[in-house]
């Protein structure tokens, strides 16, 4: 096995452990939590807000390929798709499909 290959295996192992740690600690902590308690409601709020923070960070300060599109184009796509989501009575298919088509088109022609 080459050094490069063994490095990748180590990187995958480290990434998997770091990810499982958050998941399993969450299960361990939740053993003592009642679903009607205030602490449960607090964690519910934090879970939703953390997800929202992650998604908006990905759109505003993206890593990877998404960074190739300008900030303005990304925001236009998100706003248009959110509008379509509500116009289409909260149907998730239309905005999801539209997002990829709209972004690809805007990058090509704007």
């Amino acid at each position, binding site marked *: 096995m080459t050094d*490069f*290959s063994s*490095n*990748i295996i*180590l990187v*995958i*192992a480290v*990434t*998997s452990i*770091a*990810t499982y*740690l*958050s*998941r399993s600690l*969450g*299960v361990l*902590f*939740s*053993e003592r*939590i009642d*679903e009607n308690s205030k602490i*449960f*409601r*607090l*964690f*519910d*709020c*934090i*879970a*939703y*807000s*953390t*997800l*929202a*923070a*992650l998604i*908006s*960070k*990905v*759109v505003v*300060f993206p*890593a*990877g*390929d998404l960074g*190739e*599109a300008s900030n303005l184009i990304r925001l236009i*796509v*998100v706003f248009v798709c*959110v509008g379509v*989501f509500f116009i289409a009575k*909260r*149907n*998730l*298919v239309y*905005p*999801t499909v539209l*997002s*990829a088509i709209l*972004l*690809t088109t805007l990058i090509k022609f704007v």
Partner: protein
Amino acid sequence: MIRSGFYLKGLLSVRSADSPAIALGCSFLAIGALLKNIGFNFQQSVSSTLFTYALPGQLVMAESFLVGASLVNIFIAVWLVNARLFPMAVSMFPLLKSKKQPKWKYYISCHFLAVSSWLIMKKDYRTIDESYRIDFWMGIGTATWSVAILSTILGYLISDYLSKDMMIGLAIVNPVYFFCMLLGSMKNIAIGTSVILGTILGPVFYLISPEWCILYGGVTAGIIAFFAGEIND
């Protein structure tokens, strides 16, 4: 062991037209192509999704690997970006608790915890008998995890045919889908405030600390939203 009826019901919950399988599939297709492009072989690319199954963490891993970061740095960076899984687990597993069920099911199935499976579970748990929610959850998890693995395989195999524009187009599907799903779950003051404030504070805290912005923004927004909900009650 596992009640097959509930497991199957969970497994089939991803086949609806507006299932997160579409967004999940597009994202992991892009990850499969990305991993191939940075030098991972087929087995390594599939193993990454098989054992990690967390898109932002895998992206951070790929970026860190490219710049030659140390294993400790990769561990910290991935842990930070995936720290959201902790509050997600704490806000979901109490709903699945049952004295009839063995603990191993909870510790094994927590690997399936991802935005897609979590949102499906939060939406549907009330329709499932309390004693068998964990079996239903294992079904959802198996389905979403399988979609991710198969999409990584497909992405790896077709990476040569995916243009840059197509990769960019695929990358927006995930945030748009899950943002719409989050907006759709704003059913009370606390959750509504959480989503709106989290959306604003995530990028704001990025300007202060790019590494910790998700955690700082999420926790701050969550605490404010919790008190807003308590005052309203």
